[in-house]
């Protein structure tokens, strides 16, 4: 007997999101299908942030008075909550402003290591070394590695994609080899929805001692993620995509790697001892959190994690899976619509990107917007991926805990409306 996950009651969830009550474009119901860009926030998250500011606000780790103690407790408590959410010890969780900063933090460690002195040799990178990404990466997990290669003389290589929108692993044995020092891969694609076999890639990469970075911006919000099971060495994600505030993200890293990693942003609160002519570093995670941190946002993100935990991440994933299946089915039923990405919902999240014959995505998006349906159009910060599929741009719908089958219906009808308007349907 298998235990079914608790079902998610999207109508009940919706009541927690004040913005979903508003109308757009002269009285249309808001159909928000752009959670892949950023999610909406429940009242509980906004309340937690406000409560922090109104009761406990102070600079964390910097004061000896009661407010400072409370603020520090709130901030470190948030770290513990978020760490538990991904199955990690709190000391392995570094707060960043977003996924992008987290990935840059790791990338800069590899170039800073050259001059960082003893203890940081593990991260030194140079000509002859290889950094491997994939052709489906978000710019946030591509450009930092291009730049790292530029700074160090290392070579960037990448996994190609299959026509279906999966990683083509057929060349993996050649691609990952003794020269490989870093492998950076999206856990879930923000365009194709594809969930990548991070563990399989990590197993091979680890044979050569390479460091494996998973871009989890689109997975941690949508799937149960356990860092031990995933098998990567670093994991980066953003609060704003998982019901949390803007301005906060997380970098998880294995303790032994964090300890061997030179700092990125330097300044207050990340130091050991400071002299005019030399400075030593604090232990992780403080080493990577220079300056007064985003305490209120950490507290807000912990509230978001509590909210998701109460729903159950299995239930969240199952809910999205159902909407994805339904969306793929409805879109398959419309002539002239081509989905870019896997057509079946196995190992696939809820990003559904598509092109409509004869109508540019901007125009599709405009007609949808006119009906209150918020989607994203363009290359979604994955320009090489779009080139690979010979699309200048796509229209993308993404689903989350507050979306319903009615939202999928609205999308399908909206596409029909666009086809009628432009005379192609």
């Amino acid at each position, binding site marked *: 007997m298998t235990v079914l996950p608790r079902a998610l009651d999207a109508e009940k969830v919706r009541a927690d999101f004040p913005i979903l009550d508003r109308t757009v*474009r*002269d009285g249309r119901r808001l159909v928000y299908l752009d959670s892949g860009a950023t999610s909406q926030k429940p009242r509980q998250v906004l309340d937690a942030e406000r409560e922090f500011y109104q009761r406990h606000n102070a600079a964390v780790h910097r004061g000896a008075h009661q407010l400072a103690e409370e603020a520090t407790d709130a901030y470190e408590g948030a770290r513990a909550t978020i760490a538990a959410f991904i199955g990690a010890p709190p000391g392995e969780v570094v707060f960043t402003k977003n996924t992008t900063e987290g990935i840059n933090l790791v990338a800069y460690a590899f170039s800073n290591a050259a001059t960082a002195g003893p203890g940081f040799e593990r991260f030194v990178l140079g000509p002859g070394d290889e950094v491997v990404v994939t052709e489906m990466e978000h710019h946030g997990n591509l450009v930092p590695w291009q730049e790292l290669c530029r700074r160090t003389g290392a070579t960037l290589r990448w996994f190609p994609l299959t026509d279906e929108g999966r990683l083509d692993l057929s060349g993996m044995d050649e691609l990952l080899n003794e020269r490989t020092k870093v492998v950076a891969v999206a856990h879930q694609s923000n365009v194709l929805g594809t969930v990548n076999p991070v563990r399989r890639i990590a197993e091979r990469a680890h044979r050569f001692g390479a460091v494996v970075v998973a871009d989890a911006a689109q997975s941690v919000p949508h799937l149960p993620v356990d860092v031990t099971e995933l098998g990567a060495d670093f994991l980066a994600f953003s609060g704003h995509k998982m019901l949390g505030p803007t301005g906060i993200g997380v970098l998880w890293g294995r303790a032994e790697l964090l300890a061997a990693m030179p700092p990125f942003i330097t300044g207050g609160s990340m130091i050991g001892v400071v002299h005019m002519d030399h400075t030593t570093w604090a232990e992780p995670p403080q080493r990577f959190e220079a300056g007064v941190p985003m305490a209120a946002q950490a507290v807000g993100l912990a509230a978001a994690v509590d909210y998701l935990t109460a729903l159950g991440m299995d239930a969240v994933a199952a809910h999205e899976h159902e909407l994805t299946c339904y969306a793929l089915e409805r879109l398959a039923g419309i002539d002239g619509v081509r989905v870019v990405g896997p057509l079946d919902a196995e190992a696939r999240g809820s990003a559904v990107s598509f092109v409509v014959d004869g109508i*540019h*995505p*901007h*125009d599709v998006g*405009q*007609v949808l917007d*006119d009906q209150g349906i918020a989607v994203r*159009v*363009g*290359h979604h910060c994955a*320009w090489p991926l*779009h080139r690979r599929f010979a699309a*200048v*741009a796509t229209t993308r719908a993404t689903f989350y805990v507050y979306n319903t089958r009615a939202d999928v219906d609205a999308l399908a009808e909206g596409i029909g409306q666009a086809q009628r*308007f*432009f005379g192609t349907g």
Partner: protein
Amino acid sequence: MKLEAMYQEIILDHYRNPHHKGLREPYDTEVHHINPTCGDEVRLRVKLDGAGGDARVVDVSYDSLGCSISQASASVATDLLIGRTVDEGMRIAAEFTALMQSKGEGEPDEDVLEDAVAFAGVSRYPARIKCALLSWMAWKDATAQTLSADPNASMEERVS
């Protein structure tokens, strides 16, 4: 439905039957402009006759990938620019740019802008303004390069 306010018939006509489309010889300068937020592209060639602001715009030809607004705008731009002097063209471009930045409040001068007045509604949609301006930016760039005869700049990808 406010869609019609944006997609005026004139725009849809130009989109379906663009004027002066296709890259032609002879030309002085070709530029390649890209809208970084959506990936839309235009390759645009300019052929001038003469020097400075009095030079005559002999031809503007282009090839583009993009939405209805950017395609129609390119078509309308060539209608307005071919045959003018550079100074006249720059004035029209400035007028059109002002209209696009008017947030729906502009009162376009039909004598100057002709079919381009149809884009007034686009200015209400900030995300589309760049689409409408893409080929105008490309024309201004190509013209400036031709007049200053900067040989390097011509083929690189430019971001508008």
